[in-house]
């Protein structure tokens, strides 16, 4: 600690701080543009010049370290004169277009200019004009004359997003923020550049000219798109969501959000929003009153129960449904006497059910990722599945952490990968066993009995270099994190992989956890939206068709592990009740459509992947006749005369679910499993990612996101050797088939894929006719 004096106040501050930090400590504001607490120091805008006694010139507060005895004046005539002169320079070439600028009212330049600008301009020359630049569907860079060259956007790309898509080209007054030859900005975090831009140079394309900042109401909310549950500020105008910005929460999303969190709101009011209850009568859809629809549903369910038995009823929900919705759905089902309820729609192995000690979760706090020094991530398209968790890992790697990956694709994660083992899905178990074998070799550590056999087999068959390198890396760490990604959780041997990875964690003293796929992947367990001992899981419910299904937010053809099978089961059912915000594929297979609200129109709770419950309120009124699903389920419960459906509000539902110590209910321990980890597959194996803008029904309808590179129609990717074996080359049209289903797609070469796999995305209309996300697939020339 050292002693300094700022504006006459004597304070003790930590050594190593900058003058800017020190000023913040004592609650002083120093005007600034290029400085941003999460970015490297540029010290280029010079707005933060302050007076430091004994220094021969004014110094930039953002870059000047404090030293013992320093006396700083942030507000003296000397300092203010310097600040005003910088302001004058910033304004000379800045257009005077505040009245038509989208940033008007929330412009940092405008704000500071109020305090530091001159009344009249001494600049009588022609202003420098900069041409607009194309940057893709999300960021508008039409008015680059407004740019003040703070380079926050550039530094964000390089430092946080991990990719330099934009830069400052040319020099001097001609310096221009742009992309390489009109490339689009494709980072999944790109929208943060809009927030960072202190002026109206980079603005939100979807939001442009939609509203002025002072016309907006702001509500806090939580993102439904991935397990992180970023905090959102939802901006509304006339009961419509018109913009979404991050709400700072250091423990979760820091000050960022992903583009998915930010721009998905465009899907909220999609043209196919379901706004009135509908019944299919004589093959035709007719709009009906809520009362009619709900009574119809209650009767139909009663009928199935009496005629075929309650176990003929199944309920499926998405992981993005709220805690309250998931809880009431399972309560309704169980009230009917059925145990068939599940939210794990893309999962294919359920052998951990009943053997898992608690709800699977991250196994640590999100912020712990920053401090890890070794990672092993198993089966994850990390950047696309968890954009902001990936950004945290990226920061850790920058600080020196080693990142190890076991996966079936070598996509660029925009972070330095220390070791990667890229193998076909069927080899995952074996690879983990090899890592264990390598660890025991070097550590002489005692293995648990249940994995001894597979590890012995791996030792016998030989330990590969990749496994050795990963083991060595993990063994050298002090704060190790072993994480299972979406792909590992969806894997047909998910439980085995879990057990093996857990053993790796045990041998390396690591924390072990799951990267939760959906906003409520943890919450759904707490809400018990999983089958009990007598129930059928999601896959079984579709493999052994039921007579009646209740779907909560589910677009079966896009949300299920095996759309072919799902559609067959739903098509053959006597009754399908779809609670949905949209008129989607369910119009083909459902009998009743109940319009429910998306997250912005209901109160609810998500329990994120680290087990943090976050509740939110509706930001706008329900659209049309749609109603929050928790209310719909409550009425259904009442109509079915079930006990305990007398909730006053969603909070009372939540409190019932979350009673007691939440932390005690999170537990990744898995026991009683027989681990064999045998490779099973023959032929070409499918590797299926769920593209970032295909994950749920809201994003799938978000127009601007759907125009990005990440939303391009999926192709079939094979490595070069595999392509050649099939007599194909990049760009060829091919027919992909799985069981009865086929799709015609374009082939492309991706040498980051292992031999023996074909990568075909799931969750997309172009591939919805296909079967399971894992398993054998055939590819042939179309």
């Amino acid at each position, binding site marked *: 600690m050292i002693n300094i004096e700022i504006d006459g106040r004597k304070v003790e501050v930590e050594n190593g701080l900058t003058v800017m930090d020190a000023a913040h400590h004592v609650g002083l504001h120093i005007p600034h543009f290029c400085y941003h607490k999460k970015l490297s120091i540029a010290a280029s805008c010079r707005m933060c010049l302050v007076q430091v006694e004994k220094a021969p010139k004014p110094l930039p507060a953002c870059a000047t370290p404090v030293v013992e005895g320093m006396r700083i004046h942030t507000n003296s005539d000397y300092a203010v004169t310097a600040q005003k002169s910088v302001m004058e320079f910033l304004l000379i070439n800045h257009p005077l277009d505040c009245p038509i600028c989208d940033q008007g009212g929330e412009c940092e330049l405008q704000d500071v200019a109020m305090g530091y600008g001159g009344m009249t301009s001494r600049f009588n020359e022609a202003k420098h004009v900069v041409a607009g630049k194309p940057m893709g569907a999300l960021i508008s860079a039409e008015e680059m004359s407004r740019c003040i060259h703070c380079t926050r956007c550039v530094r964000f790309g390089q430092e946080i997003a991990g990719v330099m*898509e*934009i830069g400052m*080209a*040319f*020099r001097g007054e001609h310096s221009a923020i742009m*992309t*390489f030859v009109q490339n689009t900005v494709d980072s999944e975090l790109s929208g943060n550049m809009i927030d960072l831009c202190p002026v109206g140079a980079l603005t939100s394309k979807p939001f442009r000219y939609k509203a002025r900042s002072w016309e907006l109401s702001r509500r806090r909310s939580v993102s439904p798109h991935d397990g992180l549950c970023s905090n959102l500020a939802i901006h509304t105008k006339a009961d419509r969501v018109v913009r979404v910005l991050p709400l700072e929460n250091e423990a979760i999303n820091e000050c960022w959000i992903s583009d998915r969190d930010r721009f998905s709101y465009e899907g909220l009011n999609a043209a196919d929003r379901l706004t009135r209850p509908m019944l299919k009568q004589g093959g035709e859809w007719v709009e009906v009153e809520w009362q009619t629809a709900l009574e119809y549903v209650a009767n139909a369910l009663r009928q199935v129960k009496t005629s075929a038995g309650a176990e003929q009823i199944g309920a499926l929900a998405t992981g993005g449904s709220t805690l309250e919705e998931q809880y009431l759905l399972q309560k309704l089902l169980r009230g009917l006497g059925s145990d068939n309820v599940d939210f794990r729609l893309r999962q294919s192995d359920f052998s951990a059910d009943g053997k898992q000690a608690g709800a699977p979760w991250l196994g640590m706090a999100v912020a712990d990722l920053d401090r890890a020094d070794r990672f092993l991530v198993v089966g994850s398209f990390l950047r696309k599945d968890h954009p902001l968790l990936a950004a945290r890992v990226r920061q850790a790697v920058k600080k020196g952490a080693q990142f190890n990956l076991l996966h079936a694709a070598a996509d660029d994660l925009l972070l330095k990968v220390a070791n990667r083992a890229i193998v076909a899905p069927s080899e995952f178990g074996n690879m983990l066993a090899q890592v264990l074998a390598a660890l025991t070799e070097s550590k002489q550590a005692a293995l648990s009995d249940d994995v001894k056999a597979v590890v012995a087999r791996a030792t016998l068959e030989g330990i590969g270099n990749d496994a050795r390198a990963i083991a060595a890396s993990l063994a050298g760490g002090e704060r190790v994190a072993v994480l299972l990604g979406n792909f590992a959780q969806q894997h047909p041997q998910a439980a085995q992989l879990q057990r093996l990875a857990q053993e790796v964690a045990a041998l390396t003293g690591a924390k072990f956890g799951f990267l939760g796929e959906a906003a409520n992947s943890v919450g759904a367990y707490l809400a018990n939206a999983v089958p009990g001992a007598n129930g059928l899981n999601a896959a079984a419910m579709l493999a052994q068709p039921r007579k009646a299904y209740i779907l909560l937010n589910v677009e079966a053809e896009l949300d299920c592990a095996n759309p072919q099978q799902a559609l067959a089961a739903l098509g053959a059912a006597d009754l399908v009740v779809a609670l949905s915000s949209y008129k989607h594929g369910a119009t083909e297979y459902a009998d009743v459509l109940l319009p429910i609200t998306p997250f912005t129109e209901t109160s609810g709770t998500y329990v994120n992947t680290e087990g943090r419950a976050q509740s939110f309120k509706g930001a706008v009124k329900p659209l049309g006749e749609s109603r929050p699903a928790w209310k719909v389920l409550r009425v259904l419960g009442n109509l079915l005369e079930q006990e305990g459906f007398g909730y006053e509000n969603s909070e009372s539902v939540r409190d019932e679910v979350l009673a007691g110590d939440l932390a005690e209910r999170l537990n990744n321990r898995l026991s009683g499993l027989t681990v064999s980890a045998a490779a099973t597959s023959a032929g070409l194996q499918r590797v299926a990612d769920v593209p970032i803008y295909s994950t749920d029904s809201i994003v799938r309808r978000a127009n601007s996101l759907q125009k990005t590179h990440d939303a391009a129609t999926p192709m079939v990717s094979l490595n070069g050797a595999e392509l050649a074996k099939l007599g194909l080359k990049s760009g060829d049209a091919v027919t992909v088939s799985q069981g009865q289903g086929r799709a015609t797609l374009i082939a492309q070469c991706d040498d980051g894929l292992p031999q023996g796999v074909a990568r075909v995305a799931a969750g997309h209309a172009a591939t919805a006719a296909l079967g399971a996300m894992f398993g054998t697939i055939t590819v042939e020339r179309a």
Partner: protein
Amino acid sequence: MLSEQVQAKIEHELKKYPADQKQSAVMAALRFVQDEKGWISSDDMADVAIYLGMPKMAVYEVATFYHMYKLQPMGQHTLTVCTNLSCQLMGSNETLDYIKSKLGIGLNEVTADGKFGLREAECMGACIDAPLMTVNNRRLCARLTPEKIDRILTKLSAGGELASGEENVR
């Protein structure tokens, strides 16, 4: 694709820098491309980026920052005349006018036959030999007089090359 010759030159240049600092060779790589093709296209920049494992935008920043790179064709022989103070005092504006009239082009233009392009530059660091120009960034021609300019243009027009130092002796 970068030609084999360019690749070989880059490899030679890379030896100067630590193995994990390949980006250090970007300025040289762009120069080699320019020497070979006369100018640098965005495809060339992308190739250099891939070769050195750096972002394309970072290559673009470099190519647009340093003014000796030509991002459009500037003729088979680019003549670059210094017009900074020491040269201006010694008549570089007249020198420039003379070359313009001889070639029938203005600044940043190329003769119709594609042989000559004309540029202006800041201080070349040879002020005692003003007025002066460079040819293709490689040959410094000093103490220019109309006769000397005629001699140089005639030689280059005829397909000749200037030897190192040929026109920078007094």
